């Protein structure tokens, strides 16, 4: 029963992949070796497609994998399997929080959670900056060539979009994303 198996395999992945997205990768690698549903090369294709389409990467991987294994029903079932553990756990956590939302203990714990969460997102931002605006392989110490480390076109696009988001605060972020995609094609980023 391939559908049941797909559901179960992705349920397990959803349950143990903590931290989202690429945390599912080791599980998929292991799944490839054990079930033979897809090869490691196909897995690499899946990662490439997941990263070049909108949507959460983990979900994209499950859909792609489910579809290549068992068609459209497979895609739906693998995705449901992946999502189910999050869904159940969060319903429990949300119920707990609702019950204890006035407790000083929860309030104090959250007073630590918020700065930390902001810092985690800021850390992601730093790596995004490094990978989008810097070309670290070009770094050869301080010299006249040091500027080669900067990705000028990307920096320019980033600056234009930044000013745009400040000038037109009401404009939906989706518009800027569309603009970025068009600029990327035109500038051959």
């Amino acid at each position, binding site marked *: 029963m391939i559908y049941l198996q797909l559901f179960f395999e992705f349920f397990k992945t959803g349950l143990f992949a903590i931290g989202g*997205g690429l945390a599912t990768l080791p599980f998929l690698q292991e799944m490839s070796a054990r079930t033979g549903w897809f090869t490691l090369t196909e897995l690499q294709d899946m990662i490439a497609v997941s990263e070049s389409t909108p949507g959460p990467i983990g979900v994209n991987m499950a859909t792609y994998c489910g579809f290549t294994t068992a068609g459209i029903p497979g895609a739906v079932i693998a995705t449901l399997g992946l999502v189910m553990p999050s869904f159940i756990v969060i319903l429990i956590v949300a119920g707990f929080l609702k019950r204890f939302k006035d407790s000083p203990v929860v309030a104090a714990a959250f007073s630590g959670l918020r700065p930390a969460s902001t810092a985690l997102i800021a850390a992601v931002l730093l790596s995004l900056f490094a990978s989008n605006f810097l070309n670290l392989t070009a770094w050869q110490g301080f010299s006249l060539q040091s500027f080669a480390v900067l990705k000028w076109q990307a920096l320019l696009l980033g600056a234009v979009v930044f000013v745009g988001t400040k000038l037109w605060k009401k404009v939906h972020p989706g518009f800027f994303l569309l603009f970025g995609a068009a600029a990327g094609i035109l500038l051959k980023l």
Partner: protein
Amino acid sequence: MNVYLDLFLTFARVGGLTFGGGYAMLPILQREVVENKGWCTEEELTDYYAIGQCTPGIIAVNTATFIGTKTAGFWGSALATIGVVFPSLIIITVIAAFLRNFADNEYVIHAFAGLRVVVCVLVLNTVVKLFKGNIKGKGLPALILFLLVLVASFFFKVSSIILVVCAMVWGLFFGLYLPRHGAGKEAGK
């Protein structure tokens, strides 16, 4: 509009505009869910992100489930969750069925390079907003915690789960233990 339909459509938009990991959906969530719909506050959004870091499953799904259940109970959470994975299901199925070389397409590669730059800027704006809400004016412990977690995560690649747990202990110490015991001792002098 019916709240369930509204949840489904809003989260489908969020899913369709998420390019990259869970962090990439924060700017979209901030606009759609906090500013346009008022379903949760910015602080709560940070909480959901942090909880998503240390619970199983995809962060995007965790956040959708959280906001769905808060807004309209169980069925709200179900529809928000289905909504956030819906675009992936359609897009990935189409790509897997018809566009075998999608990820190698020159235009796709350039468009995504442009998209990533925009995501970078949008996440920057989000981090600034979150910093204003969660750290600025919240006292020295919050600022120190922010810096510690940022350094630990970015430079030392400490796992998010460990950092979130430590941050909650930090919050309990400064928010609960110290006000009761530390201040009590000083008053007793």
